[in-house]
């Protein structure tokens, strides 16, 4: 009985120590990436290719889900606001919830599962097939050549994708609210403009999406770089990327929201 409890405790302790260890390694990995990112700007073609695979290829899913999220917000918001006779406030509801929360968060969640998993799988496979070891043999720094351009490509793409998501969502809300249901168009836009502040709402949303972009990309790159060079290892690392970065996004979102919107 005693032995059993001891073993359980030991396992928990090992888990915790192991995760702290990985946290430290990941931080060192981020520092190393930032230190070696000179090449991704002097040879910008490398970064452009990564913007293509992380950003452009995620466009369809981001645009379509943005449109539908906005349309659902328009429908649900109208149903509720109508009972209070204030359906003109639909514009405020749709725009504020998209710009402050849903835009950055949902875009980042989609980005993590669309682009983050691809990054992990790619780097994990590169490691498993010893391409990274081959680069080191040829005195090419894999962090500067492989990791840093991916980091910057994804970090540049993320705020643009979040902005597109929000804009598309507001268009969806407009489509349902004004075109389909018939809320007054002037009230929809003017109330929205009166309520949404550039610095307070839009800029804070952009800051959120940049933070999420960095978090998702670091997790994806690190999991890929750290994956055991086996088929099973790569598959596990890809799963872990999606799970960890989704949790990180939601946790960070709470912290950032508490910072940005709780005061005053």
């Amino acid at each position: 009985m005693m032995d059993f409890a001891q073993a359980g405790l030991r396992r928990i302790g090992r888990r915790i120590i192991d995760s702290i260890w990985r946290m430290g390694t990941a931080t060192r990995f981020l520092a190393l990436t930032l230190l070696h990112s000179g090449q991704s700007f002097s040879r910008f073609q490398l970064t452009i290719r990564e913007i293509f695979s992380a950003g452009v290829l995620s466009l369809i899913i981001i645009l379509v889900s943005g449109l539908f999220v906005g349309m659902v917000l328009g429908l649900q918001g109208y149903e509720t606001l109508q009972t209070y006779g204030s359906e003109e406030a639909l514009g405020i509801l749709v725009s504020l919830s998209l710009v402050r929360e849903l835009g950055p968060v949902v875009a980042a969640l989609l980005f993590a599962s669309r682009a983050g998993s691809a990054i992990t799988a790619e780097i994990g496979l590169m490691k498993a097939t010893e391409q990274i070891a081959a680069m080191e043999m040829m005195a090419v720094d894999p962090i500067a050549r492989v990791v840093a351009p991916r980091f910057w490509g994804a970090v540049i793409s993320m705020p643009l994708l979040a902005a597109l998501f929000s804009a598309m969502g507001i268009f969806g809300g407009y489509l349902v609210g004004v075109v389909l249901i018939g809320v007054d168009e002037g009230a929809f836009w003017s109330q929205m403009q009166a309520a949404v502040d550039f610095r307070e709402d839009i800029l804070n949303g952009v800051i959120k999406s940049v933070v999420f972009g960095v978090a998702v990309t670091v997790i994806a790159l690190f999991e890929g770089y750290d994956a055991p060079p086996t088929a099973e290892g790569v598959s596990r690392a890809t799963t872990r990327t999606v799970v960890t970065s989704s949790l990180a996004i939601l946790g960070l979102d709470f912290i950032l929201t508490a910072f940005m919107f709780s005061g005053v």
Partner: protein
Amino acid sequence: MQRATLDLWVGIFVVAGLGALLFLALKVGNMTGFDSASTYTVRAKFENIGGLKPRAPIKSAGVVVGRVSDISFDNGSYEAVVSMKLDSRFKFPKDTSAAIMTSGLLGEQYIALEAGGEEKMLADGDSLKLTQGAVVLENLIGQFLYHKADSPQEADPR
């Protein structure tokens, strides 16, 4: 430098993203607000500000002419001191009065300015003398009940 179709796609993506940001800034948010225009600051003391918040609108005749920039407490007179940033395109006489109003029954609170008749205009750093604080619904109901209880009872018909 060699041009590839990949560059074109990335270019389209970046332009679309920046366009979305611009759309958010200009059409959704109101960047052409008072933040960029020149303003002058006027202060007023209220005995109760109710739920007034910084950045609440200041309206005169229903038109937004400025925003509340800061709210603090004066420990000398136990009143709230509200700093208002008014757009310098709009000038008001010195004896302008300020009142805290509510838009609609449950709407946000704002400050309404009622222009006076004096010749001299308000300048930066001036304070408004005539103010009317927010109407607190609880007090109003309390007064009403108190008044009801105080009024003479109707004579017993018996």
